[in-house]
């Protein structure tokens, strides 16, 4: 039975459980003389039955699904002939993935040996047995749970309290997913990054000046030294983000000021949705636009003045990224400026300040912590932005501050290292996780600082 079908069947069973439980409660109530004789409304008896029917079975099902693959693989490996199991771990992994490829009808590296064929058949039969066992067990647990509750339904059963307890538990579990996600991110990245740092020293990675992650496959290969000094990558990221902020900070801030202080209702109701559209355009569209329109434009206008501009210049990527961030800066600053109490404005006007003087000398200083917080969030956004730089910035790691040259960024390197063939034992693939760790920590710090700024600011005027 396929997982999806089993899942649907489970759902159907619990719906049945609901009706059975409710009917029993109703019939009990009739005998006892009215629903008021029951502890809870009949619906709760039904819901309780449904819960006991689906929840234990479902959790069992989930746990089995997540470990099924590894258990089956382990069983299959245990049954492989002696000479195959004696292979070195790397070769054995290749063999296993080949067998799995054979099972799924994928391409297999090299020739299909009789050993692999028989192993694949073994795998398929194991999988079939596993699915049969799961189906039977899940259904048995579901029906057993349903019958158990059904027998316990009495007028005195505190069904509502029990149902509420279960629902509360579900709510708590759902709200802790955010924690699990963070923990998952930290652990998974950290684990691979530590494996990377076992091969490449941390100091080489953080302070090395040369980045060329291509590893030599053969001993005598030229030009693939495998250097993992990430400084040029960091420098490129900072350069592009700086260009982006150079565009986004003034324009976004001025837009917010204009919209909140000068524009009338009509203009605001037109411009705000337009800015929202600008914010909603997917980054891959910006990337396409940067690569197809903006980069050639800059290159050609550079050629007019006799300046040699790279076709993957940092300027093009930074420019478009800046435009992408404008609505972000503008909406954050808009919130912050609107939160400044009206009394401060009135005070400034009453001593004869013009609007721009009020804004420059009163509003902006008063809102400064919030604005700085917003700008920091924008910076973290710029650093983590991927698609624009993947499509419009370069791959070669140049250590330069010239915006007309091609530079590369952390996110570009992560994408290029992980798209395509991955080997989780070579530093090339693992380097992506080390970069990811740096990216995660960097943006996390920026976010925490920014959020404290914003919170402090909010508290000041709340």
């Amino acid at each position, binding site marked *: 039975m396929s997982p999806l079908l089993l899942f649907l069947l489970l759902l159907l069973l619990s719906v049945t459980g609901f009706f059975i439980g409710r009917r029993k409660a109703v019939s009990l109530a009739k005998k006892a003389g009215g629903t008021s004789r029951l502890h809870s409304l009949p619906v709760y008896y039904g819901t309780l039955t449904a819960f006991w029917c689906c929840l234990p079975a479902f959790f069992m099902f989930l746990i089995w699904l*997540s470990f099924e693959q590894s258990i089956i693989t382990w069983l299959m490996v245990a049954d492989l002939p002696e000479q195959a199991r004696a292979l070195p771990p790397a070769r054995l992994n290749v063999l296993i993935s080949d067998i799995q490829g054979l099972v799924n009808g994928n391409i297999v590296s090299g020739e299909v040996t009789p050993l692999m064929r028989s192993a694949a058949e073994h795998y398929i039969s194991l999988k079939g047995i596993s699915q049969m066992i799961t189906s039977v067990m899940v259904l048995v647990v579901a029906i057993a749970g349903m019958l158990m509750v059904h027998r316990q339904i009495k007028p005195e059963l505190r069904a509502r309290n029990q149902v*509420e307890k279960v*629902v*509360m538990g*579900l*709510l708590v579990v759902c*709200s802790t*997913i*955010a*924690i699990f*996600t963070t923990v*998952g*991110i930290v652990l*998974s*990245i950290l684990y691979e990054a530590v494996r990377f740092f076992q091969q490449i020293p941390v100091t080489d990675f953080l302070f090395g000046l040369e980045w060329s992650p291509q590893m030599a496959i053969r001993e005598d290969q030229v030009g693939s030294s495998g250097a993992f000094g990430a400084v040029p990558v960091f420098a490129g990221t900072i350069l592009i983000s700086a260009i982006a902020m150079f565009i986004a900070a003034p*324009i976004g801030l*001025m837009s917010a*000021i*204009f919209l909140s202080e*000068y524009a009338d209702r009509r203009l605001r109701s037109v411009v705000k*949705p337009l800015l929202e559209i*600008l914010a*909603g*355009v*997917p*980054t*891959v*569209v910006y*990337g*396409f*636009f940067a690569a*197809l329109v903006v980069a050639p434009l800059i290159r050609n206008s550079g050629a007019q003045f006799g300046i040699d501009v790279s076709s993957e210049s940092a300027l093009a990527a930074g420019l478009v990224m800046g*435009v992408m961030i*404008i609505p972000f800066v*503008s909406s954050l600053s808009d919130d912050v400026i609107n939160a400044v109490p009206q009394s401060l404005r009135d005070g*400034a006007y009453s001593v004869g*300040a*013009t*609007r*721009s*003087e009020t*804004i420059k000398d009163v509003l902006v200083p008063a809102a400064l912590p919030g604005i700085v917080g917003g700008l920091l969030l924008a910076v973290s*956004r710029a650093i*983590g*932005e*991927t698609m624009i730089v*993947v*499509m419009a910035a370069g791959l070669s790691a140049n250590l330069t501050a010239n915006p007309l040259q091609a530079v590369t960024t952390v996110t570009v390197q*992560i*994408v290029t290292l*992980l*798209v395509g063939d991955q080997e*989780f034992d070579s530093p090339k693939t693992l380097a*992506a*996780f080390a970069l*990811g760790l740096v*990216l*995660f920590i960097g*943006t*996390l710090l920026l976010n925490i600082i920014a959020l404290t700024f914003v919170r402090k600011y909010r508290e000041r005027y709340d």
Partner: protein
Amino acid sequence: MIKSTKKSVVGSSASSGRIKAIDIVNKGLKRRYRKEKRFRLYGMLSILASVAFLAFLLTSIVFNGYSAFLQTYIKLDVPLEAGMIDKQEPGRSDFQGIIKSAIRSYYPEVTERQDKRELYALFSSGAAFQLRDTVLSNPPEEGTTLSLWVLADDDVDMLMKGHMKRDVPEGSRRLNDKQLRWIERLEADKRVEKRFNTTFFSAGDSREPELAGIWGAVKGSIYTMLVTLALSFPIGICAAVYLEEFAPKNLATDFIEVNINNLAAVPSIVFGLLGLAVFLNFFGMPRSTPLVGGIVLMLMTLPTIIIASRAALKAVPPSIREAALGVGSSKLQVVASHVLPLALPGMLTGTIIGMAQALGETAPLLMIGMVAFIVDIPGGFTDPAAVMPVQIYLWADSPERAFVERTSAAIMVLLAFLISMNAVAVVMRKRFERRW
């Protein structure tokens, strides 16, 4: 500026008679008004700059992409001689050969091998499949001549749409002079026509631009979004309800809140790394599938949905809760039957916005292998699939000029989806917005 004005006001009242404060103010007024105007202009210019960029972006995409909705077809007379179609299994006949002989019979003067190859290149390799479909759906008599509009090759298509100029030197265009003459003859015979490009909306990806379509990616996106929605909507709402209505104020809930706020600002590519390391490598889930993509996007959109749902819950006035508690509801009953229905429109709006974000997201999906070249249209949650933004990324990388217009057209389709989703959200917000 203000400080100095203030000071002079105070000073003048103390010693009247000498310089009046109003004179100082008046003297500086012109300059200050000029500054005021300039400041206002800066504000206007920055708004104008963003709007102009948006207009530039949209027009350049429409301008580049509108022509992809048309496709050049060439009318080809296909004489079906005896023995050409396999009697037992008509599907296994040599349709490529039949098309080639039909092309040869239209240009009898072409005999050189090299010339023939250049001639065949004017027609799409999809022509044989078109012939096959026609023959299979409606088996023709032997000896008749089928008149068929077949797909032109993408170079011919570009020529007909004016993206390839005829008057540039031969070396700098993809069709040579000979091929141009052949096309001109077709045009003179009125055998070339541009029609609505149905392939684009019904086919999966292909290496040949004229055979490539967006439908596979659209379906992949739909499956991925279904997974995301099915997970993130219930989980997001449950989390929001707990944090807003039930959670005690303690360290644990504070920690959850800090986590949610931080996750909302974590770069999306990091979620991709998580998906690769945990879902693919640890749990061994299948690569490139909507299932894994949907789960990763769920984790990414969850903070958005939770934050929006909490705002919606906050907007429900406490009097409603108190009234329900007053007639004897339990806390959970209050939330389930009074607070939630009132907050639901706001939650739905937040969910739609989160889904729109997920629909346009590319970077985390690259990490979990959704960049593979997939021709088949996915039929389920565990089939390898591409999604629309990834398809755009893949096509944007292709060198053919015809893929530029198809990329732009795919962007238009994606933007149409996004704008309609956002429009639904805006309408819902307007319609159900309640001020208490």
